[in-house]
């Protein structure tokens, strides 16, 4: 088998194992949390009778292992089941939420990834001069401010003072693409500001690292222009670490944006997961957990493959 295919196969198998482990951990975690879904649904209004009734109705009296394996069996057959709290089909609600999350992540990535790499290159080109310092200063400032704070600041200025974009990012199917983009404009800005610094700094560091190699010095001595050296010699060799950090940030854009979703009331996966954790709705939490784990594992897999493809020494193992 081709070594790359073999590596991919190995990683996918490992990924499946990790997914299984994650599902066990999530199940155990939600099971040991205080209170159960019946208690959480009824809240302060719970009486012993209606609590018992609801428990029986939801099948919570089965032992945990039975519940776990019946859930797992369903998933393997492609059935995510129904939410305990409101009886909705999980796959259906999850599909909507996931596509919303991906929509937001897509636009944030489309802006932040090229921008970060471009700014990284620019910082290298003007290393230790004012453009470098300005870029570093600004991005380090925005990454240091909590996301919700950036969100509130942008809402105040852009939405309330100038009235340019909407402060509530609720999107739905009846909206046109333009309306959707208007709704998510501010959250996309927040996410961009939050992930920019990380990717920009890594691009800068990786390229500077390569820039210290002997062959770059040779190129410099030959009189090659700086930008060309960066583009033709330094950047390809710095791809692996850059791709790694880009993938981590992409994963963050999918699974780590709960705060942004709360501030903008965005109907993504994060808020959906948090609501169901709070209600101890284990089937939904499991399904979300699996998707999040799959996103992480998948993106890491992509990062590995890209690194191999970018590096001839890994591409042709001895």
């Amino acid at each position, binding site marked *: 088998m081709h070594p790359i295919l073999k590596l991919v196969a190995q990683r996918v198998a490992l990924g499946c194992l990790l997914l299984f482990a994650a599902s066990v951990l999530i199940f155990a975690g939600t099971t040991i*949390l*205080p*209170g159960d879904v019946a*208690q*959480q*649904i*009824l*809240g*302060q*209004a*719970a*009486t*012993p*009778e*209606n609590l018992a*009734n*609801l428990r029986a*109705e939801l099948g919570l009296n089965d032992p945990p292992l039975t519940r776990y394996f019946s859930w797992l069996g369903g998933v393997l057959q492609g059935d995510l089941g129904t*939410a305990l*709290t*409101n*009886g*909705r089909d999980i796959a259906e*609600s999850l599909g*909507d*939420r996931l596509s919303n999350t991906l929509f937001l992540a897509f636009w944030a990535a489309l802006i932040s990834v090229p921008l970060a790499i471009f700014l990284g290159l620019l910082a290298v080109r003007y290393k230790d001069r004012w453009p470098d310092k300005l870029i570093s200063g600004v991005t380090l400032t925005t990454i240091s401010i909590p996301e919700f704070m950036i969100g*509130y600041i942008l*809402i*105040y200025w852009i*939405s*309330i003072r100038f*009235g340019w974009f*909407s*402060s*509530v990012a*609720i999107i*739905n199917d009846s909206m046109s693409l333009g309306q959707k983009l208007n709704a998510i404009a501010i959250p996309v800005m927040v996410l961009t500001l939050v992930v920019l610094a990380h990717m920009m700094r890594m691009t800068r560091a990786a390229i500077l690292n390569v820039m210290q190699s002997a062959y770059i010095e040779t190129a410099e001595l030959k009189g090659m222009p700086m930008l060309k050296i960066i583009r033709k010699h330094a950047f390809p060799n710095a791809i692996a670490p850059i791709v790694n950090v880009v993938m981590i940030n992409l994963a963050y854009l999918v699974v780590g944006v709960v705060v942004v979703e*709360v*501030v*903008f*009331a965005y*109907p993504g996966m994060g*808020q*959906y997961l948090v*609501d*169901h954790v*709070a*209600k101890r*709705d284990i089937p939904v939490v499991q399904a979300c957990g699996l998707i999040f784990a799959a996103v992480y594992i998948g993106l890491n897999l992509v990062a590995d493959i890209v690194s191999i493809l970018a590096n001839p020494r890994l591409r042709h193992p001895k």
Partner: protein
Amino acid sequence: MNDQLKYYSDRVTKGLMTRREFVGRAAALGVTAAVANSILATAAKAAGPVKGGTLRMGIQGGESTNSLDPALAASTVPTVNLRNFGDCLVNVAPDGSIENRLAESIEASADAKTWNFKIRKGVEFHNGKSLTPDDVMRTMERHSNEDATSGALGIMQGIESMAVDGDNFQVTLSTPNADLPYLLADYHLQIQPDGGFDDPASGIGTGAYMIEVDEPGVRHLFKRNPNYWDDSIGHADEIEVLALNDATARTAALQSGQVHIIDRVEPKIAQLLDRAPNVDVKSVSGPGHYVFIMHCNTAPFDNADLRMALKLAINREELVDKILRGYGTMGNDFPINKAYPLFDDTIPQRTYDAALAAEHYKKSGHDGSPIILQVADGAFPGAVDAAALFQQSAQAAGIPLEIKREPNDGYWSEIWNVQPFCASYWSGRPVQDQMYSTAYLSTADWNDTRFFNDEFDALLNSAKAELDNEKRKEIYSQMAKLLRDEGGLICPMFNDSVEGVASNVGGWIEDPNLTVMNCMAGIKCWLDA
């Protein structure tokens, strides 16, 4: 809206100031001409409702786990939804009286045990089916049968039997209760076709609006029901209810004009928000109260002197001032205030008295070990701060109060009604009987202070059967005093509901029952063009 602007716009409507002058004054206050004109339009509008438009509400308390099943409604968004698409037999009107809805008339037997509700004719469910007394009975059955998971199960327990008699729905109680209509006004008891047995979460009701989009935890869209039986309700073409749980997101949405009505404005920003040119902050005092509860049967709180020491050691004035920022009133250690009919306002107000508290503390013989108070901000907004203030004022009386901070998550299952001394919140009930029966009767499901007092129980039962309001008031007053002096409830404050409303919203009225006009702001308000 800014007070000055209000004053000026009043003057314009009274003809004491010209339009041009007003715009000039408004500009001086930092208001653009466009906004100034819209303020004038609002001020000069005719009093009558305007039809049309989409009324948007940003409401706290909506989760993606919500359902349209009336039995499961426990937070504000589901309750607002119920009000939009459903009707109860009766409602509690803003003035505390009973307003007939699907019941056309109500008759009680002299002993208040048998009740007859004449069901309105010509009412249609959204699926085209006509309302019958059978639907009413089936609904009540669903909420009261033993398998019910309804939040209304507790209030249905006094019902002995139900029957349909021609156009009437008849209820027979096991013990008399003069307040039965108030119980049946509970928002869980929306009338559904066949009681909602087959598909409780269908969203089919008799209400003024029909559900179009149901995305739990995100948004709910309603279209006006063209066949609604009551013309005085349902003005906007559409109502959109957005679940905005973040306080800042709600405020921003109101300020940027994306929603017209928000609930739960944080007291600390209410005055700032009121200054915004196109927004009014409304507050109404209701029966909701923020409390600390002690279990009367658990040491050290089984000692009446210690309970009294703690009641005297809390500085109520300071709490109303600092926690509610004035949006509320002092409590008097019983769960009733002037929002209730038959409230006795002559009971003396308990105030902070460090010396007297110290005296009671000494008399209690407490060993001086720390008294643990468990709190989380999930109990009520500002609970942790309130506990810290309580700790300070108690310390001045020599009472060693220790605060244990608990997570919000799981608070209602692990701490409240389990631990002997903790913070809590009650939204109140429409009548005293229901409040006392829910939480202070010895046999109450939610007797969260573990208050077991035979005299109190006997008084409550005699009040239930008493149809003479003067006599009932007297009985309730005795009960209040008993609870105030013997009970495990420390009730330092009643919180106002504070809401933000865009100035182009018409029809807003003060309704103390539940937040946002008893959750009926959507169906009762309108948008001025």
